């Protein structure tokens, strides 16, 4: 299995098939903000499409795309208008692959019937070759099967604060490490604008007790390049 980082997405290549994993999207976030009286002057749908296009231009057409959950922002209702954008986004992603899989994460009473109508699979987890894809807040028995070598997760929104002694900057990052006999890859959120959470500072609330400080961090730079920063716990914090 060949593992590649393409910007904030993960590309897996088993030789005959290629699968792209996309982290948490939280579509509809700015609508929820606006409805609580915060005027957001950016439309995230379009921003998400621009970001997605950049990644597709690197990878070309794919066999599978897996959205690792939290497709839609959790709290608050979504206006019919915003649903249109969500559907538009999903359709666009679908047009770039043979099969689109959406990890359910939160069971949404509107979203999932809708996906069904669009003929898109909504699942708790997705097994492909020796890889299992799931959101990360719950464990499923199938994940522990001997045949599985890799877990690909979302949920944690991993990011890293880099500090040069004077200035601090935050970047999205992948976390890659071991848990029991599995290799675990945590994919950063796809959500634009907010980088995410530094695992050294906050608990990511995974269903497992990962030793994230021992995980290797791969930091996503703004030009889609991904840089190996080594063990998370060894990166200086002060």
């Amino acid at each position, binding site marked *: 299995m060949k593992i590649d980082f393409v910007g904030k997405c993960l590309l897996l290549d088993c030789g005959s098939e290629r699968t792209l994993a996309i982290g948490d999207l939280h579509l509809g*976030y*700015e609508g929820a*903000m*606006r409805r*609580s*009286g*915060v*005027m*957001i*002057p*950016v*439309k995230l749908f*379009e*921003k998400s499409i621009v970001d997605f296009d950049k990644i597709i231009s690197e990878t070309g057409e794919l066999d599978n795309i897996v959205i690792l959950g939290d497709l839609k922002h959790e709290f608050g209702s979504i206006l019919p*208008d915003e649903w249109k954008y969500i559907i538009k986004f999903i359709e666009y992603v679908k047009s770039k692959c043979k099969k689109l899989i959406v990890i359910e994460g939160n069971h949404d009473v509107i979203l999932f019937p809708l996906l069904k109508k669009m003929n898109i699979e909504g699942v708790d987890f997705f097994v492909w070759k020796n890889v299992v894809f799931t959101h990360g807040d719950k464990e499923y028995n199938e994940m522990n099967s001997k045949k599985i070598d890799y877990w690909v997760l979302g949920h944690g929104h991993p990011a890293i*604060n880099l*500090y*040069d*002694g*004077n*200035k*601090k*900057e935050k970047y999205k990052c992948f976390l890659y490490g071991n848990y029991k006999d599995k290799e675990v890859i945590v994919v950063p959120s796809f959500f*634009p*604008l*907010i980088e995410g959470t530094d695992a050294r*500072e*906050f608990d990511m609330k995974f269903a497992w007790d990962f030793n994230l400080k021992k995980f290797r961090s791969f930091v996503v730079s703004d030009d889609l390049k991904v840089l190996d920063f080594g063990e998370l716990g060894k990166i200086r*914090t*002060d």
Partner: protein
Amino acid sequence: MVESKIEFIGARSSADVKGIMHPIVKEWFFAKFKDFSLTQLYGVANIHERKNILISAPTGGTKTLTAFLSILNYLVSLAAENELEDKIYAVYVSPLRALTNDIYVNLERPLTEIKELAESKGIKLQDIRVGLRTGDTTPSERAKMTRKVPHIFVTTPESLAIVLTAPKFSENLRALEFIVVDEVHALANKRGVFLSLMLERLEHFSAIPPVRIGLSATIAPIEEIAKFLVGAGRECLVAQVPLVKDIDIGLISPGVDLLTMDGAEDQKRLYHILDELIGQHKTTLIFTNTRNATERIIHYLDMHFPGKYTGNIGAHHSSMSRSQRFMIEERLRKGELKVVVSSTSLELGIDIGSIDLVVLLRSPKSVSRALQRIGRAGHQLHSNPKGRFVVTDRDDLVECAVLMKHMKEKIIDRVDIPMNALDVLAQHIYGMAISQIWNIDDVLKLIRKSYCYSNLSKEDFMSIISYLSGDYDLEHRNVYAKIWYDKETKQLGKKGKLARLIYLTNIGTIPEEGFVSVVVGSGDAKGNIVGSIDESFLERLKKGDVFVLGGVKYQFIHSKGMKAYVIANVSKSPTIPSWFSEQLPLSFDVASAIAKFRGFVKERVKNSLECVKFIQDYCYCTSETAGQIYRYCLEQEDFSVMPTDKKVIVELFKQDKDYMLFHSMYGRRVNDALSRAYAFIAAQLKHRDIEVGVNDNGFFIAGDALDTSKILKGLTSSNLRKIVEEAVEKTDVLKRRFRHCAARSLMILRNYKGRSKSVGKQQVHSHFLYSAVNEISRDFPIMREARREVLNDLMDISNAESILKKIERKEINFEVVRTPLVSPFGLNLITQSHSDFIKVEDRVNFLKRMHELQMKVIEKR
């Protein structure tokens, strides 16, 4: 920009003033007062003649009544003829909310008395009504006002804005004749900017241009304040009332030498001095600058004099509840208290009864503030205020001595009024759009009448129109736009049915501040909340800073939302004192005066007798005080070099790291900008872990193997702004200010659809907004405003720039000196954080030890 015409005037004769008064009012007045006060001689007749006027008088006294006397006189003469209409004749606006008492004294009581007097003579007067409207006014009181229109309307800037958008009630302002602005000196900030636009809107709304009357304590530059009051292109009289002939001010220093005394003795001496002063006076008011110190003084007075200060002492500071503060004020007025200790909260407003001494414990940091504070004593007519500085260290000593000189010589430090604030502008344009449809050129014309926007560029103006009309919003439906703007017809108006509701529940300029929980971020105690700090203190914290909370040291790691994460059990010394954010910055003018004074002393330092005499004359102080100042300066000159107004000394010394200590006597706001710029340059030169310390007298940067000449050369007057902008990008300071600006410009609605957002929630939202705005453009107007606020209001970038220019022109020189350790003038800067320890002795001992080391160095030479 159209210039305003400012004219300074003198007092009118008593006969002049009498001549304009209605017989009833005259009789009432002279039954109560012997004669007109000086302030009244300056003001009353000019107001009667409908001239704009700014009245500046050092102490409270009769200012408010001066403004009202003409107005009452006018209204009474109308009422006697039965010509009083149902409209608002005069608006009185004050930044203080607790107006009730003043209004009673200055308006309602006179009105009742005049009416009774008239009735006793068989003259029938129409009722003259006074209406009070603040944020605290109940709906039923408001409804009453709608039915019976007040003739004099008393309010705050914010409530005035609300009233002006009220369709029915605002009609009463269509023929407004007077507008009184009280406490003008407290308005050199965004609230003042808000009011200044408010006045223009009011003027535009009213068919009659109302006479503007400003009341202020001593303030400078007075011409600018007058222009601020009347707006661009209008005339204003300025009355500087010389009420106080001689200020009774003195300086007391607890030690023969502030350093050589033992810590405990020193403290004891300080409290004995306070006790003595209190004993000699009827009621004493002590100002301490910080809330913490307020409580401490009360505690220690009681400790040193058991039983003597029980029941007759009170604290008054901004962390206390309103009712607690009100209780203290009441007891003061009743004369029940012997002594009140306040941080800054008793500086303004309300009459607080007969105080005969004000003690200024530590420097009040500006001449106008010092005058304002001692003006609280001798509030009664014709009595001179009395104040005493009590100093606590040698920098404080020099500072207070120079302040004293300026108070005596009435050299007032200048304030800055924020210009072209885009967030306040957005709020007002929204407010304007709510009332009517406007032609855009008229809007700009009205706005430019305000002093604070007199040179507003068309581009800046249009950027706010774009923001409000949703141009930055990529959504085609523009559902969230606040106004519509039609380029064809050049018209603009409000959008949405909720516009007025949103406006009146979200206006204002005072940022909501919250408390930040301090949480242990690692180790055994992980997750424990150990206390809370103000948001403004968080603003000062950098990663790695050590501070003291409840007597325990913590190291700051990072903040998220309303939580600050720290490491407990740190051995490092504190790097930032917990009162630092409360500390008022020293005014630039006073700082420059201290630098100049140092220059004079340096010229004479070789001749001790002459020099002490000079200091004594220059600062109007005792020979003992002059001697202390002289010794301090001599030590500095012997050990290192005395910095002056012409020479900035940069000291290099090694402790745990390399230190570059700049003796830049420009006040903290300038030093804040300079230190961030130099630290940023050092970091660019690949120096890691640059530590920065700032106070009013200078700043230092510290790090490993500093390349001093490269660092010094790296900063110029032309790259300063860019470097500071870059250095503050993504800092908590900028983010917090952005949140305030976003709330002021209604990007984040604190109250929306019946729900109000906690500060924490606003913070989370603004974090997201901040990223979103940066995504669109660095030049998004509200982002630019946040940057302007940090650089110009929090820091003082323009004076920092002009200093660098002077350095480039060689009017000021850097002199780099190598010293074995920090010099005497730099000691407080290096050790300021130590003052947080509960044991004062620690700091005193530390200072003593350092001082001994310094003396050894001097002896060797």
